[in-house]
């Protein structure tokens, strides 16, 4: 690599460059509704320091966020709001369901609790535990990074160019 940088050249596939950029700055939208939110705070704060993985800026606005970290129970009263937040996020977007409640409803199998957020939004990584440790959340973020690596972000654009659309 250093041999090329000297002459001002860097050769790579455009897709890989895009993926590299996306992977290294997954800005999270911390959507902590319940107990898991406290553990998410621990993961963001000193000690576990999620910023090491490029999640430097917790983006409380859905428009600027890449990864929705849904930490905590979603009740049926909250469901439309969660869906709307997901719809407001710009593509590409990923979702981490943190904790047993977000994955499946957890212990709260009651009239008012949504039994897993995958009833309303697609989920990329599930983190079980009630609540999971901060390490669990960090691992989920690494999994999101792996997933980003495998994507082909430009495939649609290039094929439409070829077909002349």
């Amino acid at each position, binding site marked *: 690599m250093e041999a090329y940088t000297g002459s001002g050249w860097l050769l790579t596939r455009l897709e890989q460059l895009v993926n590299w950029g996306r992977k290294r700055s997954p800005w999270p939208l911390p959507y902590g509704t319940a107990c898991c939110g406290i553990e998410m705070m621990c993961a963001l704060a000193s000690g576990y320091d999620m910023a090491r993985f490029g999640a430097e800026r917790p983006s409380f606005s859905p428009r600027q966020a890449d990864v929705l970290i849904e930490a905590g129970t979603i009740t049926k009263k909250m*469901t439309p709001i969660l869906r709307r937040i997901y719809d407001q996020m710009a593509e590409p977007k990923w979702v981490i369901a943190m904790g047993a409640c977000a994955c499946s409803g957890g212990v709260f199998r009651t*009239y008012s609790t949504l039994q897993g957020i995958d009833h309303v939004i697609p989920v990329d990584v599930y983190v079980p535990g009630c609540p999971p440790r901060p390490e669990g959340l960090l691992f989920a973020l690494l999994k999101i990074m792996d997933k980003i690596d495998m994507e082909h972000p430009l495939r649609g654009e290039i094929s439409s160019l070829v077909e002349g659309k």
Partner: protein
Amino acid sequence: MTMDLLKGVSNCLGPLVVASGEFRGDVTVEVPKARIAEVLARLRDDPNLAYDFLVDLFGVDNLDLYEKAAKPKKKTEGEGDAAEEPKPAGPPPPRFEVIYLLLSLSTNRRLHVKVRVPEDDLSVPSVTGLWKAATWPEREVYDMFGIRFPGHPDLRRLLMWDEFPAHPLRKDYPLEGRGEERILRYE
């Protein structure tokens, strides 16, 4: 000590006390539902009792207790509600209870005041005029049991959403609900 307390309460309320009981040091008195605001005001303003702090108020649905009492012919002996009706004939006992937990800040003594609410007349006079602390608890009892509080300034559902069709803490409502969903709307 609880005997003193009971005596003081019955001195203060007189014939308004329908029933009274004591369990593990917690004194409960039952009063007629229509006069609950008067009773609580008297308890608050009585200089000896001075129950000047409303800790909480909430509802209880006794449907299962009565059904259980009606089914087996002999029930284990206990005080209070369950063993109260020896004969199944006659009008059914009032289904709901609303319990007010009072506290005296000067003497640190507590008192439970109970009213019974029959199913055909689901209303209890509001006590928000005495303590503002009753605002949300009364809304919650309305939300969870469907008991209305005439005189409440703003009686809406508190915990469930407005269009929710049932009252979840009633005993005939299943734990997992009846499949109610809140509809996604972009208003």
